C-alpha cells in the first residue's frame, strides 16, 4: 500500500543570526538593553513575522552554524528546552532566557531519514543543553512569541576540515531527508537557514562603549558587498545553477557563512525551487553581509 503523504514545506527563509539584532530590539528575554540599531535588517524580519502569523505552520526547522558538530548531523530531541543562553562571543549583547518546545516526533523522523540516506545522525537528548545563540536569534527574529514548536539541526563542520564539496553534498542529502521527514509526519513546516552571507568582519569593536553606534557600521569591504549583491541577485532570479557554480569562490573570497551548509540544506529540502526568492532586506553587522530572503512555496504552487 502506498504511503500517504500529507506534510509540506510552506516557505523557507534565509534568516541570519547576529545577536545584535535581538540586542537592538530590547525584548524582555534579553538582559542587555540598547538604543536600537540595525533597523534595516530588523524591519526585514517583520515580513517574516507577518507571514508566520498568516501561514500558522506546525513547526519551524532551523539549521544553525553556531551549533557546530564534529561527528555527523545532530537534531534537538528534548520536548522542552529552557535556560539562559549567553553568547560566548558577544556576552555584553546577548544573555537570553529561552524557552522552546521541540517537535521531537519530527526530530526523530529527520534522524531516521538522514540515517536512511547514509548520513551520520545523532539525537541530542540532554535536557540541560544550552541552545546556541544562532538558533535562538534566528527563531526570535522570526517568531518572538515562541508559540510554534521548533526543530534545531546542527551544522556538521566538515567544510572547515575537509573541502567544500564534501559537506555541501551532505547538506543536499540532509535537505532531502528533512523534506521526506516533513512529508511523512504530515507537518506544515517553515524552514530557516541561519546564515550570514559574506562573513569577513571587524577584528575589534568599532565603538566598545556603544555597540549600536550606527555611524561606525559598514560592510567589511567593497568586494564583499559586490559578492553579496551578485549572490542575492541570483537567488532573487531563481538562478540556483549560477549560485552553486560560484559558491566555492564566494565562500573562499568572502568567508561566506553559507559554507556551514544551512542555505544548501534549505534549498535542497525545498527541491531547488526554480522561482526566485523575495528579498526583504540587507544590512551589515560588524562588517558581515546579511540578507533576509523568503521562498514562499505556497504562493508558487
Amino acid at each position, binding site marked *: 500500500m502506498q504511503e500517504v503523504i500529507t506534510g509540506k514545506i510552506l516557505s523557507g527563509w534565509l534568516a541570519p543570526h547576529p545577536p545584535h539584532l535581538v540586542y537592538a530590539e530590547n525584548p524582555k528575554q534579553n538582559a542587555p538593553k540598547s538604543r536600537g540599531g540595525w533597523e534595516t535588517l530588523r524591519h526585514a524580519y517583520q515580513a517574516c513575522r507577518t507571514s508566520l502569523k498568516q501561514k500558522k505552520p506546525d513547526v519551524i526547522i532551523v539549521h544553525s552554524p553556531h551549533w557546530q558538530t564534529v561527528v555527523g548531523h545532530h537534531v534537538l530531541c528534548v520536548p522542552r528546552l529552557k535556560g539562559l543562553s*549567553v553568547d560566548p562571543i558577544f556576552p555584553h549583547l546577548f544573555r537570553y532566557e529561552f524557552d522552546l518546545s521541540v517537535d521531537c516526533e519530527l526530530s526523530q523522523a529527520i534522524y531516521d531519514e538522514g540515517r536512511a540516506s547514509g548520513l551520520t545522525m545523532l539525537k*541530542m537528548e540532554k535536557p540541560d543543553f544550552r541552545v546556541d545563540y544562532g538558533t535562538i536569534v534566528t527563531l526570535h527574529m522570526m517568531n518572538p512569541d515562541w508559540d510554534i514548536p521548533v526543530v534545531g539541526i546542527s551544522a556538521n563542520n566538515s567544510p572547515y*576540515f575537509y573541502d567544500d564539496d564534501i559537506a555541501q553534498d551532505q547538506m543536499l542529502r540532509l535537505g532531502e531527508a528533512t523534506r521526506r521527514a516533513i512529508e511523512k509526519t504530515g507537518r506544515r513546516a517553515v524552514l530557516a537557514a541561519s546564515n550570514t552571507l559574506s562573513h569577513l568582519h571587524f577584528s575589534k569593536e568599532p565603538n*566598545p562603549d556603544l555597540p549600536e553606534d550606527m555611524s561606525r557600521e559598514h560592510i567589511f569591504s567593497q568586494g564583499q558587498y559586490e559578492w553579496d549583491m551578485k549572490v542575492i541577485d541570483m537567488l532573487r532570479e531563481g538562478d540556483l545553477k549560477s549560485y552553486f557554480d560560484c559558491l566555492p569562490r564566494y565562500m573562499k573570497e568572502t568567508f561566506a557563512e553559507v559554507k556551514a551548509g544551512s542555505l544548501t540544506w534549505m534549498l535542497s529540502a525545498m527541491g531547488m525551487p526554480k522561482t526566485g526568492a523575495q528579498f526583504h532586506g540587507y544590512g551589515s553587522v560588524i562588517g558581515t553581509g546579511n540578507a533576509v530572503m523568503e521562498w514562499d512555496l505556497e504562493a508558487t504552487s
Partner: protein
Amino acid sequence: MMPNDKIIYAWVPGLPHLLRPDLNDGYRKLAQACRDLGSEFKRQGVSRILFYSTQWLSVLGQSVQARSRVSGLHVDENWYDIASLNFDFEIDSALVENLIVNSRQAGFQVRTVDYEGFPIDTGTIVANALLNSSGIKTAMYSCCVYSDYAETVKIGELAANAAMKLDGKTAIVAVSGLSGRYFTEVIDYKSDGIRDQKDDQWNQKLLASMNEGLWQNVASMRDDYIRSTKADMGLKALAFLEGAGACRPGRRLITKAYGAIYGTGAAVMVGA
C-alpha cells in the same frame, strides 16, 4: 628573578573524554598525567592557575574572565553523551586586574567578562577538573581567532608579566590539542587512535623537539606541522607558552603522556 622561579608551565588537552577513563586506556593515562600534574602544583604551593584554552574563542579583541565566582553545569555541544560537566571556579581578582592592565598597555582591546551563565568552555572545565582538586584560584584568558602567532606570543608575554607581579607561584596552563584531525564518524572508543599515521609522526617529532628544548627545530617545523596536521587553533597554545617564557633557551616541555582523543593528538606536558 627568572620567570620559572614563580611560574610553572603546562600544556594539557581539554576534551571531555578524559573524564571518562573507563572508555579507553589512553584517556585514562592522559587523565592520570593531568592529575599527577595537579598534585605537583599542590606540592609546589601554586597560588593560582591561569588557563589559556583554545576552546574559549573571542573574535573582537581579547577577553578575560572577571567574575569572582563562576559555577554551573555545562553540557558540551558535541560530546554531551560522554559527560555533563559541573564546574566551580574561584577567580583570582588580582591576576585578572593585572591581565587587563597589561593587555591595554600593550595596545589590545580587551573585554572583561562578568556575566551570570557565561558558558565556560569545555577545555577549561576539563583541565580544571583534573588539575585542580584543591580549589586553587584561577584566571582565564580567551583565544582570539584573529590574533596570529606573533600576536599570541605577545599575549603570553603580558600574561606572564601579570603573574610575575603577584606573590606566590602561578601555573600557566595552555589547554589545547596537537593534530586536529577528528574522526567524523561514530567510533568505538576502545578503538580510538591518531586518525592519520602522518599526524602521529608529526606529533612525535614536535614533542621530541620540545622535550629536548630544541626551540629552533620547533620554529622550523611549526608552519609545516600546522598545515599538515590541521593543528588545533594553529598552535596558539605554543605561541602563548612561548611568550610566557616556556620556550627560552635551556627550558623544555616534557611529555608526561601522549595519546589520541577521537583521532586528534593529545599530550600532557610540563615545563622544565
